[in-house]
């Protein structure tokens, strides 16, 4: 008596898990191989599916880290649930704004006018900075400008 059942289960799960260090090295090797793969495929610049592929590889790497380095494969119950829920929320939170953007009304935006055609927001004197991909280079060195924004 005296403890909640969950804790006992957790303890049992954790007891079974100890194993040799070889497993970590194996995972490390796999991660490095996947890194090389993603860099190589990334260099090719596959047009549409490039990012998808890169994210699939990243997810595989992430899963390996999670399951073995972070021992999620041994942690059961609430720990897994917490993680699963957070990932689910991230995905939904990403999906909904994208759906919004994809279905927004754009008809009234005049032809040739993308977001970039806007006049600059003028806080101080540097109204033009950062517009049109930042075409405007100011006099003087860049370093000091970025270090201390003049206001």
């Amino acid at each position, binding site marked *: 008596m005296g403890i909640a059942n969950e804790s006992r289960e957790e303890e049992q799960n954790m007891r079974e898990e100890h194993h040799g260090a070889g497993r970590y090295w194996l995972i490390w090797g796999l991660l490095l191989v996947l890194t090389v793969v993603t860099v190589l495929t990334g260099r090719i610049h596959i047009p549409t599916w490039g990012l998808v592929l890169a994210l699939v590889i990243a997810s595989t790497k992430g899963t390996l880290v999670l399951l073995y380095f972070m021992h999620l494969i041994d942690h059961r119950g609430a720990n897994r649930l917490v993680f699963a829920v957070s990932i689910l929320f991230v995905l939904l939170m990403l999906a909904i704004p994208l759906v919004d953007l994809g279905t927004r009304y754009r008809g009234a935006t005049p032809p040739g006018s*993308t977001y970039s055609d806007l006049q600059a927001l003028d806080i101080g004197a540097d109204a033009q900075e950062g517009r049109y991909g930042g075409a405007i280079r100011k006099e003087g060195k860049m370093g000091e400008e970025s270090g201390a924004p003049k206001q």
Partner: protein
Amino acid sequence: MSELLNDILFLPEAASTFAERIDTLHHFVVGTTMVMSTAVGLAALFFFFRYRRRLPAQATEYVVPTLKTEFLFVSVPLVFFLAWFGIGFRDFTWVTTPPKDAMDVYVMGKQWMWKFSYPEGPNGVNVLHVPANRPVRLLITSRDVLHSFYVPAFRIKMDALPGRYTQIWFEATKPGTYQVLCTEYCGLSHSKMLAEVVVLPQEEYENWIQEQRRGRLQDRQDALADNSLVPPVARMVEQGQVLAGTQGCLKCHSVDGSQHIGPTFLGMYDRVEQLEDGQSIRVDEAYITQSMMDPGAHLVAGYQNVMPTYQGKLQGPETAAIVEYIKSLRTPNVREGASEGPAYDAIQ
């Protein structure tokens, strides 16, 4: 009946087709809410009285709902809510999808005023004239921060966002004057950002717009024509148009608002241009002339200094004709098909 309900609910006069639809749903929603909550309230009151405590430590029965009861608890509100939603979403789609024959008006919010413009003129500040019984599509944008265009009598509202257009439409049913309010907090004088919609009968509206357009033309001609001896402006414009073609201006400058090597001529005159060096300048005769003679002097931001000088290549009258031609392409601030997009003003 519905008049009475509108009075009880303090609803303003309903002056658009959308207002009628909205009010019907509003009454339905209020009605069901009242009936349902009265029922719940009466049940609760009855229970409070019927099951009042008789002994300090009274024991009670253990009551749990049957599955059927819980199912009822879920399904009854769900059916009602979904019904409301169904009607509501249908109306919402209706009000955000303008009919094809709708007349366009551009609306621009600015701290703290509303500007209205019609594709072929005129412009107006804080007063919008529309014909009755004709769908009007509002294309709404902002020059600085978020605003929201709200006409209580029409029951319509749409946010004005800097950087893009949003749209909503209405069909006013009754001539009259209705208030426009800004409902998105936009700074110090948010509550003073009021405007009016004047709904005119169709013929009156036609007369009004004719008059406005004539008036504008008249104004412009009055300003330009100093006496009857100089060639009429119209002829100068024609001349300028030919010259612009032969001198190669149109190779780099478009006249339809599209992006090209140089800034478009459409709407250039009287526009405030942001310059490369961070300053801004109003495009006037002097600036246009200077730009032809010394193109690099005041370069508009975002463009390369590639224009050759026309010093010596153009005669004085030719220069003037081109200037007139550019002036004739002057357009209202918000235009259809303009390349500049919604402008984004400085915030003072």
